[in-house]
């Protein structure tokens, strides 16, 4: 009872502070001391309340006491922090605490959310190290936030696709202060220079791969030798098909070399560079080996086909300026481009006939289109020959008319 005046004073001061213009809430609607989501906790914990009320939890039936325990109807600390009060959960308790709801199919079914995150987490690098007592590894709240949890689809969420590299980079990036983190400090920066990041950030494609696309989400763990091609093959299906058909996979696994990334780089994967066919083989194989020769040959074949297609495309532009009907040529050139595009995944089989079969087809279609357009343009040249005949008749007509004219003049 002695505390009651103090609490009332605090209450009125908090109300006045919140009601002032310039404070976080608009002055016209002073907040009630008790809200549905936060109860009366927000009276003493205003910043947590503000964060929590923006979260997706606050809109569902989750309340402060769901995680922290206690009694949110009381302003008396002894009562509020009384029976069943948990306080701030320990880090190693967080996954279990979240899973108390999120592993409950009965609760999650209505939201159509999966319930396997906790099980997955326990298999992840994070989960296994946490089990060993490493309190520095990421728990649920490190990636999802504690009070301000937002759905994955919300651009402000830490786990929105465009925000994932930054979220992971808080620990795994170059600025991560704590020692003992897995991965090189440059991984985050290298990813930012990759074609994947370019697709994600510069072209705004939310389906572009982020950290979790290759490392897993709740079960995050780096792919091991023998798994890398499966991970990359999620998206690069054709490349993987040719790659597994070729000799490289077995050989690389035997040598302990990770597939795909040994040639394409780990995090700084660049866009397609066909010219590397000519140079990259020599990094593992000897400078004069037959493998290096094969690589150079594939590059030459590819180049020849690409040049032929470019030439045909330039001719189509010329024909359009006349104009000549080119829709058919465009369609066929697109077919040639498809063959050429297929030649690059096919190069992963490092098998000569597989690649040259495609490049030769691309080249022959391109050459066919080019020669047909040349024929049509040459056909136009014949108009100039007709012009000579035309002028003969024009001059003949003029001569005849002059004759008539002079005869008429004589008559007059």
């Amino acid at each position: 009872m002695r505390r009651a005046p103090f609490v009332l004073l605090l209450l009125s001061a908090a109300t006045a502070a919140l009601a002032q213009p310039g404070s976080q809430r608009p002055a016209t609607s002073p907040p009630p001391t008790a809200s549905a989501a936060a109860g009366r906790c927000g009276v003493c914990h205003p910043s947590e309340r503000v964060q929590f009320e923006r979260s997706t939890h606050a809109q569902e039936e989750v309340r402060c006491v769901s995680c922290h325990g206690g009694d949110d109807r009381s302003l008396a600390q002894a009562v509020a922090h009384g029976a069943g009060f948990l306080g701030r959960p320990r880090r190693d308790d967080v996954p279990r605490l979240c899973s108390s709801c999120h592993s409950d199919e009965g609760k999650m079914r209505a939201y159509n959310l999966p319930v396997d995150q906790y099980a997955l987490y326990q298999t992840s690098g994070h989960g296994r190290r946490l089990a060993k007592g490493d309190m520095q590894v990421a728990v649920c709240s490190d990636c999802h936030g504690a009070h301000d949890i937002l759905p994955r689809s919300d651009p402000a969420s830490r786990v929105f696709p465009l925000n994932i590299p930054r979220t992971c980079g808080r620990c795994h990036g170059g600025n991560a202060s704590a020692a003992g983190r897995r991965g090189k400090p440059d991984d985050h920066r290298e990813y930012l220079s990759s074609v994947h990041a370019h697709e994600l950030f510069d072209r705004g494609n939310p389906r572009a791969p982020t950290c979790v696309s290759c490392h897993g989400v709740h079960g995050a763990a780096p792919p091991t030798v023998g798994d890398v091609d499966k991970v990359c093959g999620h998206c690069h299906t054709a490349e993987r098909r040719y790659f597994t058909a070729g000799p490289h996979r077995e050989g690389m696994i035997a040598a302990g070399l990770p597939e795909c990334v040994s040639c394409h780089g780990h995090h700084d994967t660049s866009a397609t560079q066909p010219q590397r066919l000519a140079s990259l083989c020599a990094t593992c194989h000897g400078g004069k080996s037959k493998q290096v020769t094969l690589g150079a040959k594939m590059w030459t074949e590819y180049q020849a086909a690409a040049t032929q297609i470019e030439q045909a495309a330039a001719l189509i532009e010329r024909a359009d300026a006349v104009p000549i009907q080119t829709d058919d040529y465009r369609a066929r050139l697109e077919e040639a481009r498809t063959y050429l595009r297929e030649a690059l995944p096919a190069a992963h089989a490092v098998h000569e006939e597989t690649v040259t079969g495609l490049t030769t087809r691309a080249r022959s279609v391109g050459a066919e289109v080019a020669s047909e357009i040349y024929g049509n343009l040459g056909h136009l040249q014949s108009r100039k020959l007709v012009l000579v005949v035309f002028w003969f008749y024009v001059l003949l007509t003029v001569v005849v008319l002059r004759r008539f004219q002079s005869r008429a003049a004589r008559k007059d």
Partner: protein
Amino acid sequence: MSDAPRVGGTPGGGDASGGGAGPGPRGDWVAWLERRLNLTETFSFLTHFGLVWTPVDTSRPVREVVREVASQPVPAYARWPRVLGLLAAILFGLEVVTGVLLAYYYRPTPEAAFESTRTIVRDLPFGWFIHQLHGWGAWLLVIVVAARLLRLFWDGLYRAPREVLWWSAVAMAWLVLQSDFTGRLLTWDSRSYWAAVRGMEVVFALPVVGPLLAFLLGGRVINDDVLIRFYALHMLVLPAGFAFFLYLTFATLRRVGLSPEAPMHRGAATTLRDHLYSMLILSVLLFGVLTTLAVLAPFRFQAAADPYSTPTGVRPPWYMLAPYAVIENGPGPSWLLGLLLLAVAFAVLLLPLWAPRAAGGRALGRMRLWGLCALAAWTALSVLGAFMERR
């Protein structure tokens, strides 16, 4: 029963006096037609239009009248090099014929304009030829009309009593430029579209005229409304106006003649028949030149217009480069520059009112000097407009 009396009668019907034999042994269709139609009256339409100088007695037979008219003396000056007006009339006829042929396939909407033009040029037999003839004909027509204006100025044919001749010539030049400008837009390719946009920027910058035109076109944006209005202007209004001023030119020529220095019957006069032959030869040669241009220097086909991407270096058509340079880079506010341009245009139109009336050689010489200076200034501004950067 009713046919019975006709069996033995004359086949052509017995009502015509002395002409019952129908077409004679030489196929005298003129006589046959003349019994049914007053050919002389029809022929007199030409005299009314101005091609023939003398009035025609419509009660006389047509052969006689034509023979007489064909032997009429024609002033010697109606020959080379004073042939520009005639060339303009022939080219106008060619533009009408080719334009009608193009109109059979052309569709004036932004979606279809480019496609239908491409169909004409690419897929129709000789469509490219008609299209190129129309384009090159327009080019020559602009040149001819401009040259004709210069020649009328040089010879002082704006002075009394030939003010109407001058006004007609100015109006015809203006109408031809308008036709050229509206016609350029119709293909709706990237170059034509952006040339029209730049050109309209100049026109919209003029005081009074600009806002009025924007009101009539429904805005300052080149869109589908402008396209269909340009189309209507190009194929209905402007050709009708040109035909009217052509008629006015002939009409005033019959009254005042073309040249004070060479009156009707002085010098080596020829006959009208001779003159018509020359005209025919000229037409044939013109057709030859146009065909050669169409084959050897065809207009390149551009990509479809895209209002959201401006190609580099687009400028208004060449005849608008001088006003474009003034509006874009001239000193002072644009309304003042627009006012200046309008003043110049009105000065040209109203030349007969302020030019010295005296027919003396000195006054004419002074005017020629002024004209040369104006032409030099105009050329310089055009060159400036062709190479300057936009502000």
